[in-house]
């Protein structure tokens, strides 16, 4: 009941949207596809949900081929496209009812599955979907995608445009759905959400950079990373970039993440260099790599 993708490629005119993508999503896995806008996430989702043909390669979803068995797939998957595709002029309840009807089911029949999510928006069930907040739209769209009890759930950027509280709740909901035996493929441009998946694939420019568990991915990071800060961020970045031994210099919140090209790097040396550039309140200490660091290192 998982997903299997082998050597999928897809181009639009002269843009290579996907280049030789292969990976497996195990049954009942919560799998994240992490990458920025334009990385090819939506194209891959559309191929897997039978909306687009791949140029090359094959893929199966819940055991069905995405080209040959498209009708079976359409019965067995739930799909939540980006931008919460709902009928804005229909109420919450009417939207849900409509999607239940076209899948040949009713709200009552599968209420168990969506109950957790739907109770949160039920007080607003007579409100038009267009008048809901981002978080509520997201919950309604998820309910609609689940109403026919799909075996595999595709969620394309479900947390884009949603506030942190709703984002957190949404991931908690996904965890609960996973426990009910649903295989979930979710895409997101936010690197910090990678940690919430069982496994992730990092994708950029139509290529997979790496696939592994979030913990293993950061362990692949080849160098020690140092958090550096001072009283003047702009000068700090400029000076670090001018430093002849730098391997990478990236602003990272209040700090700059610095890696050195030498194996025997001594932070004190860097400290002296920065002091010589008249920077004050310099702090340098080692820190753990994040998914984002890994992503940038791989994409470099």
């Amino acid at each position, binding site marked *: 009941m998982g997903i299997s993708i082998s050597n999928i490629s897809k181009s639009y005119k002269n843009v290579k949207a996907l280049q030789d993508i292969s990976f497996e999503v195990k049954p009942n896995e919560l799998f994240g596809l992490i990458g920025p806008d334009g990385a090819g996430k939506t194209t891959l989702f*559309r191929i897997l949900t039978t*909306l687009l043909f791949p140029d090359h390669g094959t893929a199966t979803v819940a055991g069905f081929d995405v080209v040959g068995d498209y009708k079976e797939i359409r019965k067995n*998957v739930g799909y939540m*496209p980006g931008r919460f*595709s709902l*009928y804005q002029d*229909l109420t919450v309840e009417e939207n849900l009812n409509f*999607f239940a009807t076209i899948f040949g089911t009713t709200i009552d029949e599968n209420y168990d599955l969506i109950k957790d999510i739907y109770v949160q928006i039920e007080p607003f069930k007579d409100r038009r979907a267009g008048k809901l907040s981002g978080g509520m739209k997201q919950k309604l769209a998820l309910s609609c995608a689940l109403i026919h009890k799909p075996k595999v759930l595709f969620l394309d950027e479900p947390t884009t445009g949603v506030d942190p509280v709703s984002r957190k709740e949404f991931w908690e909901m996904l965890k609960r759905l996973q426990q009910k035996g649903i295989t979930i493929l979710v895409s997101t441009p936010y690197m910090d959400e990678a940690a919430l998946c069982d496994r992730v694939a990092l994708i950029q420019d139509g290529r997979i950079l790496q696939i592994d568990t979030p913990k293993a991915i950061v362990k692949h990071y080849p160098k020690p990373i140092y958090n550096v800060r001072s009283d003047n961020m702009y000068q700090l970045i400029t000076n670090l970039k001018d430093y002849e031994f730098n391997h990478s210099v990236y602003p990272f919140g209040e700090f700059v993440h610095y890696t050195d090209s030498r194996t025997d790097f001594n932070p004190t040396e860097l400290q002296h260099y920065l002091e010589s550039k008249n920077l004050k309140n310099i702090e340098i200490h080692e820190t753990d790599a994040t998914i984002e660091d890994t992503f940038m290192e791989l994409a470099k």
Partner: protein
Amino acid sequence: MKRFIGFIKKEFYHIFRDRRSLFILFGMPIAQILLFGFAITNEINNVDIAILDHSKDNTTEEIINKIAASKYFSIKQMITREADIASVFQKGQVKAVLNFEKDFSKNLIKDHKATIQVITDATDPNTANTITNYINAILQQYQKELNKDIIIAYQILPQTRMVYNPELKSVYMFVPGVMTIILMLVSAMMTSISITREKELGTMEILLVSPLRPFQVIIGKVVPYIFLSIINAVVIVMLSIFIFNMPVQGSLILLGLESVLFIITSLALGILISTISATQQTAMMISLMGLMLPVILLSGFIFPISSMPMPLQIISNIIPAKWFIIILKAIMLKGVGMQFIWKETLILLGMTVFFIALSVKKYKIRLE
């Protein structure tokens, strides 16, 4: 079947919750019919004219009185010099000037011939033309009365009188055209917009990734508009019968059936438009430019096809509206039955089958 009914129910929610489309659906037919019926008309009423009478005799006085007595003209000014003609036009006070020659009565009796110059403001050529024709009609009427007592060799041409018969209401000519436009607009534009809206919202993606078959989606989109268009057709016919006292000569059942055929033609066109446009805006533009303009300009609704240049006459044949207008006029005004319009009906039917086949072929079960 339950899926299908659910789908149609949803379509009706969309229609009734969108005030704009509701207005287009039900406000437009009424507004258009009233507009064409009352405002845009070939009839004239109380047109201001000036008179320059060089003879001031009995005959001219009688003619002037006749003109003044008609409801079409009101005499605004009597002028005395040729030079004033230009100035009254320039001031925009009158639309026409009647210039009676000197010794009008005398000439008429002596030579059986007298001249009136009718000068009209041709900035609006249609009105100018109509005014000239109306004045001619009045003059001929007068001439006829004069000739009653005298035995004379020739008669006034009766044709002229018929064509410019003041009783002929232009609204009768407009109803078939307006009905065609409305049915086209509602059916083609509204369906194409409602399909492209789902594309824009992204809900089309979900519908595609569902067990609903493509033809179910299409028919589900179309059925509500068939109903609404039929209601519109009925409203238009009722308005023309009860407000403009337009007699429908032919069979109402035939009229209804032909209308349903044309509605289906337009819906097929609407679906075709939606398959080639990605946004509501494009669908609207294509509907307006690609459908409305040809219907107005090339269908014979406003400009007679016979007076168009040859290439346009040929093009007009591929416009479904042309055939529907011929059918409507035949049924409504001439009161003929199927035996006279089977050819047009067949052409329309052929077009419908073609458009449906084409749009089913073009409608994709996938996104590309």
